[in-house]
């Protein structure tokens, strides 16, 4: 039986225990980003609410894509992960129907991640974003399997 570690909204968790699985529930417009290093056997999962922090020194950097994601990667590097071996997969970033672009937080979260990764030469191995479905994301630390569940269905990315 694996140990379930919940990642709340605006939260991030890292694990090197092969018996752990990191779970974040009910991604709406939020971005869920999983990072896994097969060589180091370390996985991390972040649940960002918003694309950009209002200033660099915020109380909870994991709330924001632009500061939370780099911090997650730095924390993983401190534990022995190498940037070149990290596998990144993203999910979430949904939207209500007919919402205008400037109010579409989900699209802005994804755009911020893409800009951040493009600037740093990082690529996403898989994405499952957009639409109007809620998503729950589960990362298995031992195998790196990333499972998405939504509305009674389940699939792997």
């Amino acid at each position, binding site marked *: 039986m694996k140990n379930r570690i919940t990642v709340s909204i605006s939260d991030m968790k890292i694990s090197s225990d092969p018996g752990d699985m990191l779970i974040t529930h009910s991604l709406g417009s939020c971005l869920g980003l999983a990072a896994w290093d097969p060589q180091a056997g370390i996985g991390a999962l972040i649940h960002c609410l918003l694309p950009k922090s209002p200033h660099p020194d915020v109380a909870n950097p994991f709330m924001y894509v632009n500061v939370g994601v780099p911090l997650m990667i730095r924390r993983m590097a401190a534990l022995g992960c190498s940037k070149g071996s990290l596998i990144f997969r993203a999910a979430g970033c949904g939207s209500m129907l007919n919402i205008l672009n400037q109010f579409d937080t989900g699209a802005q979260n994804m755009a911020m991640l893409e800009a951040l990764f493009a600037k740093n030469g990082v690529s996403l191995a898989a994405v499952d974003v957009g639409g109007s*479905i809620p998503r729950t994301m589960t990362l298995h630390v031992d195998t790196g399997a990333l499972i998405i569940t939504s509305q009674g269905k389940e699939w792997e990315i």
Partner: protein
Amino acid sequence: MTRPGNSVVGSRGKARRPTGREDLIAGALALPQMPAPVMRIMSYLSNPDSDMNTLASLIEYDPGLTANVLRMANSSLFGLLDPVTTTRDALFKLGTRRVMQLVIASGVAPSAAGEVKGYGLAEGEFLRFSISIGLGAELAAQLAGIAAPAHTFTAGLLCPIGKMVLGRFLGVDAGPILDLAVTEDLSFEQAERRILGIDHAELGALLLASWGLPEPIVTCVRWHLNPCLAPKPDTARDLAHVGLALTTMAGIGLGVDGMRYQACQDSFDRLGVTPEHVNEALEKLVDNLTEIEEILSQV
């Protein structure tokens, strides 16, 4: 077109299963009301001349409610140095609006905290969803610099009540409704109307009207999913819609219906809510919701 009711109503709920619009309404109207003191307070809040003394009296009328208010007011979260020993003291130290929110939320909590299986909401999720709409509505008003009508939080809190009635008490399974919405590219409430003959907003409004709640709260619930379709604009209704949008975006209490609702841009525009307000409101919503949930857990 799918025939109303038959394929989506499960075996839970009443002995005789509701099978269409009229049956669903009859089933909803047969449900028991919320506790009487909470009903009185909700009604009174729509009175523009409401005052602190009368509100204190309404709470003191019920010993259980008074005990809850004092327990919540003395919670470490508020950090008051001296213990609060009376309802009036709580109203004075915490503010009328805050205490009223706690009273109403604590009155709704016992019935709203359970699972709403038909709509895929685990225990606690429907209550989180409800509280978040009320909080989000008030936050939107605060950030846009407008005065929220006194009943805004209450109306927001009650907006999704029809979902609880359908998904828990009347045994409706939302799965086929979602399937229709996806297949025919409909919003979720459009699919509800096609399959059930009524959507959860209308059913909730009919229920609250039958309980005698004030008309401003009833119409707010009726049109909160799409204020663009309402006969005339209303500030509390627009705020509740923005509260719903914030809650949905934050992923709070999402069931199988997910984010499959229309955003009414007119509501944002009438209120003067900007994208920057939305981002700030989302930040505050997540923080405030945690605090309210901790307090309610003591009720």
